[in-house]
């Protein structure tokens, strides 16, 4: 196990190097002169030259790369062109906002996905199964930014209810923007989590059906073990192994999905920071934030692989 972890960590090194090269190249692959683009079309020559000097754009590319990476390892991702603040400072609290958003969404998605998946699998081809899987298919097919807009309209702006509904007059229960309070968190979390809930539900269903079809489940039933115990103690435990991987990957994937959700709900996280910085041509911030998200994703994947291996000791080393 220890050997596996070490090897798995070593395997990520080339990925990390590749990611850093790609992110570094972004600025240089942009057609035209990056300094000119950042300064603006009509900027005076000295200002462009100034930026070029400040970012070290006169150095040969490999030198620039190594100085970028050297600084990055020490936690220095350069300075924002817009605010002049350090990129790490810009990311700062936004990092946790995005992680929180992705984490809450994953938790909600796992909760809903697992329940729906187990219900579907234990009542295969029933009305409940068919409708749950239909809902999951919709969840999978919905652009989450559109779902976000609809949720804002229905539950933040609210719909006026007819007068015969007791106690409540409209449905403006939540806030359409921001992050922090319960009222602000609910809608973005549902928006981001729906797709994952759908994937987890489908995955749980097919994994459960695979397991339920196996001999040891039939044996358990033949021995007269209660159906509840067969399902929850014997079947679910094994069915969950592949689901764990999917959950981990979903959490990682949601870090990317957060870009759209954060934009819709004006949540001040890393996703919105990327978009705002792209619009302002603030390349150091775009690069730094994308690098941080990618590193986080690689790290999560590493943990998932280790967890998977831990849960399923039967996987051979190669």
């Amino acid at each position, binding site marked *: 196990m220890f050997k596996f972890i070490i090897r798995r960590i070593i*395997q*990520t090194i*080339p*990925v990390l190097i*590749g*990611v850093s090269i*790609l*992110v570094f190249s*972004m600025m240089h*692959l*942009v*057609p035209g002169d990056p300094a000119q683009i950042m300064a603006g079309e009509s900027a005076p020559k000295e200002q462009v030259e100034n930026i070029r000097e400040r970012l070290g754009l006169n150095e040969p590319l490999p030198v620039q790369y190594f100085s970028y990476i050297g600084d990055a390892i020490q936690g220095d991702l350069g300075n924002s062109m817009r605010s002049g603040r350090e990129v790490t400072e810009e990311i700062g609290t936004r990092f946790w906002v995005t992680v929180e958003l992705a984490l809450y969404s994953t938790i909600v998605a796992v909760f809903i996905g697992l329940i729906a998946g187990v219900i579907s699998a234990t009542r295969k081809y029933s009305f409940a199964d068919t409708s749950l899987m239909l809902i999951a*298919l*919709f969840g*999978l*097919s*919905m*652009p989450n*930014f*559109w779902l976000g*807009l*609809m949720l*804002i*309209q229905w539950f933040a*702006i609210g719909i006026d209810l007819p007068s015969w509904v007791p106690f409540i007059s409209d449905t403006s229960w939540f806030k359409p923007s921001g992050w922090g309070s319960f009222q602000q968190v609910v809608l973005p979390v549902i928006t981001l989590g729906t*797709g994952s809930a759908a*994937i987890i539900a*489908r*995955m749980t269903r*097919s*994994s459960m059906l695979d397991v339920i079809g196996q001999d040891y489940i039939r044996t358990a039933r033949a021995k007269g073990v209660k159906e509840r115990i067969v399902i929850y103690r014997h079947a679910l435990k094994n069915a969950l192994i*592949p689901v764990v*991987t*999917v959950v981990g*990957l*979903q959490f*990682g*994937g*949601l*870090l*990317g*999905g957060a*870009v*759209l959700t954060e*934009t*819709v709900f004006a949540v001040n996280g890393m996703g919105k920071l*990327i*978009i705002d910085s*792209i*619009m302002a041509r603030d390349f150091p911030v*775009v690069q730094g934030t*994308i690098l941080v*998200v*990618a590193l986080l*994703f*690689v790290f999560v*994947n590493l943990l*998932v*692989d280790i967890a*998977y291996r831990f849960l399923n000791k039967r996987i051979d080393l190669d």
Partner: protein
Amino acid sequence: MSHSTEHIDNTRTVEPSNPNPNSNPRFKNWKIVFRKLKKNKSAMIGGFFILFFIIVAIIGPFLTTYAPDTQNLVNKLQTPSGEHWFGTDNFGRDIFSRIIHGTGLTLLVGFFSVLLGATIGILLGIIGGYYGGRTDSIIMRFMDILLAFPGILLALAIVTVLGGSLVNVIIAVAISSIPVFARIVRGSTLSVKKLEYIDAMKALGASDTRIIFKHIFPNITSPIIVQATLNIATAILSASGLSFLGLGAQPPTPEWGAMLSDGRNFLYNAPHVALFPGLAIVAVVLAFNMLGDGLRDAFDPKTKE
């Protein structure tokens, strides 16, 4: 490493069917697949809707009463009516007609980004799987690097570099779908490569190119078809997402994601502006997902006829 992109659950990718060169199995297999597919109601509905959208994309633009970018500020933000089925947007443009004109765009973006991404991915996957060794590890490490950018982040980064336009969105989405295809094709190639008849072909002196294109590729088409269908759905979602962020189709193009982005500002007084383009995206993506799911079951030798 086991990664997966946001909306793809390739939980049950198809094993390549076992080739038996004597009885022309390919033909027979296709017949079985088609029979299974015909019995799958949801796949047929999906396929039917895809056909419907293609027809709408081709002849729809000739039938609409209003031009998609004719502005009529007097009539702006009107709710749906007999005159304007889906209402009008903030420039008084007819939303129904804009959606019809955007159908072709959406399908083309989905289709071409998958075509481009799949072609490159298939080539890389076959080369990696067939030659193995260092070639394989270099290709697969590179795929790992592309997969290290979660969700639409890779496409976002590429569009940032290339600049916002619909063509660049196609390129960006295509590049981000390369790894999925490369991995699936590599896996299938590995399992087909082990079969005896490939050794036989080699012994007979067939060239690598011939073996790859005439003997391996035809036997790994089923997982590719399934993945391509499902990937069109994902590609449409990503592309509309990029346009929604303002990095894709530029105004006044009637692209659905961009239309949604317009609608965002009028949620309070004209929610229909955001409602209909979103429903259109859901319908198209749903159709491709339904067909893709059905194809996966149909190609799966374990499912009964």
